[in-house]
């Protein structure tokens, strides 16, 4: 699917937000100028950023005036055939978009490696745990503190985790 399909149709982000807020996009390390034709495939790495300072920041900007300054790392023009396939991609959110898009991804669900997810929960402070109302593992209610142990994820290399707001699970 195209990056535009992913952001607008799959994630449900407003087109205006995608146009104006996500100003810098990399697909597999290459700068993207045209999100409607840049194709995401299984295994792709997509990085999203808000506007950046510096001439470098201006150069990396999507379709920006200074795009030619970095033409050697620009993703070549593609023709999107409209076909869709299932797949897993890595999404990186940078700077202001961490706070703005993070909740969208967490609600949809993200996949984490077993070791990463346990390490993440081990690093969370009491303020974090105080805000956790309940935890569910494969639809079973669990004591939230056990999420920090790797043992409970045994048998799975990666885990889909989603974060719900109060009332979402009803």
């Amino acid at each position, binding site marked *: 699917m195209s990056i535009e399909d992913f952001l607008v149709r799959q994630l449900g982000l407003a087109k205006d937000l995608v146009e104006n*807020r996500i*100003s*810098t996009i*990399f697909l597999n*390390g*290459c*700068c993207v100028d045209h999100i409607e034709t840049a194709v995401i495939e299984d295994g792709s790495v997509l*990085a999203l*950023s*808000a*506007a*950046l*300072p*510096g*001439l*470098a*920041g*201006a*150069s*990396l900007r999507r379709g*920006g*005036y*200074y*795009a*030619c*300054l*970095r*033409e*050697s*790392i620009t993703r070549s023009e593609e023709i999107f055939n409209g076909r869709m396939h299932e797949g897993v991609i890595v999404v*990186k959110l*940078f*700077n*202001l978009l*961490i706070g703005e898009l993070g909740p969208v991804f967490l609600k949809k669900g993200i996949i984490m490696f077993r070791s990463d997810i346990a390490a993440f929960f081990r690093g969370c402070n009491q303020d974090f745990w105080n805000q956790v109302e309940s935890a569910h593992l494969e639809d079973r209610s669990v004591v939230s503190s056990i999420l920090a142990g790797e043992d409970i994820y045994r048998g799975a290399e990666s885990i889909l985790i989603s974060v719900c707001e109060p009332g979402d699970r009803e």
Partner: protein
Amino acid sequence: MENILRIKMGEEGGPKITVEPIGQYAGLGGRALTSAIVSKEVPPDCHPLSEDNKVVIAPGLLSGSAAAMSGRISVGCKSPLTGGIKESNSGGQPSQVLARLGYAAIVLEGKPESDDLYMIFINKDGVKIVVDNSLRMLGNYETVEKMKQKFGDKISCISIGPAGEMRLAAASIAFTDMELRPARHAGRGGPGAVMGSKNIKIIVLDDTGLPMRQPKDQEKFKEANRIFVEGLRKHGVTGEALPAYGTNVLTNILNEAGAYPTYNFKQGTFAGASKISGETEAALETERGGVATHGCHRGCVIRCSGIYNDKDGHFVSKQPEYETVWAHGADCGIDDMDKIAMLDFLDDNYGLDTIEMGVTIGVAMEGGLLKFGDADGAINLIHEVGKGSPLGRIIGSGAAVTGKAFGVEKIPVVKGQAIPAYDPRGVKGLGVTYATSPMGADHTAGYATATNILKVGGFVDPLIPQGQVELSRNLQIATAAIDSTGMCLFIAFAILDQPETFQALIDLLNSFTGLSLTADGVAEYGKKILTMERDFNMRAGFTKEQDRLPAFFRKQRLAPHNVVFDVPDAELDQVFNW
């Protein structure tokens, strides 16, 4: 700002102070003024540390006024690092204070015969210069602390550390910030060495009792300033990204782009980038009771700086900027933010350019002096510079000298000055500016991204590769003009995207000075500055052969994109054809 203060250090009977009208230099400020004086008064073939060289310290045209963001100050001289003309600029308080004291520039000239060290004090009553050998080889922080005890905390200071006293080619000149910390530096090109060659340790400024500089047209100025500030606040870069994360917001992105020079420009990505990114840095600062959003001078509305504390909440340094974090971080394979902040502090205290020092240590690592990633070894090397050991003097002389001393082929410098944090193989347009700027490799030389509004050199199609030379030319012209206003270069993003903000900048200049500048006039101003600078360099013996990147950028491919710098020399030679 009607006067130029000259301090002649080599006069019989001791230093002589003269104050003269600005005269032939009227209408010039900041970089335009420093480059005009150096170009006209310094013999291009002189030794940079000789009596013939001069240090020119000039606030911008709008400095000392109520104009937002007008606190940049320019330092000019013949550079001991590049051998060419140098303008290096800094934030901090002194620009505003010096302008309110009425000086368009301080010119330090001549050379004393004795080795006495001098302190200069300037206030509304005049200028005093006294011998103060108790300051010898003190760090910038201790030097300023002594001045604070002597004159109180309403002062601002311009000083050099031990590196400047030792006349090392990477020595900076420090400018104090709002908290009276010597944390802002004119670092590039070694101006601290030239100040050191004049035996001047510190200039203390006190504008107590002096009013803000007043515009010619108060109403128009006030309105223009309002629109200008509004434009900065509403823009995504100046109003959000920079205040939240500082310039280091670029780390993750340049790394993602594969243009983040790592292990002495060996590759374009660094595995430890996220540990030293602006996002991580800001979170650490907040968590430890520091500050992630902080201005370097009064009147700054972008506030891209911060305060970096250690784990126990004690001050380590001001927020290390992107270039510093990269130079001491990825370029040396170091991913420990605490160590990088310590290196930043040591550079500031000993009075060293952080970019030059980081790149130099990367070159030393390539030469086998220490291993990539050895953060404690890097800290020890900066201490060696501060002590003035033979090894420290080599390191403090910069990347080119260090590369020769350790038999390194891959030395990332242009005109002897270390290349900053954007690999020119990935962002070739920046490579054009690195190669051709009269200043040597300088990421800020072509920074003012307002060329589409200025339309300097005619309209350029940015989507064709051949546009890179034209864009670099136009960027350098626009930057030279902004460097002369005293305005922080970060305003460039707002004026790029918002024509009304650019117009507000011109209105600010016109209502303040009484001039009738247009966008075309601003472009001509920029060209005039670059022409003076190029002319000086040509008279100093520079040819087109100096307008080149080191050969390895054309030969060694940069992973992960496997690209080389391939802009033809013939195109580089067209940059200044206007």
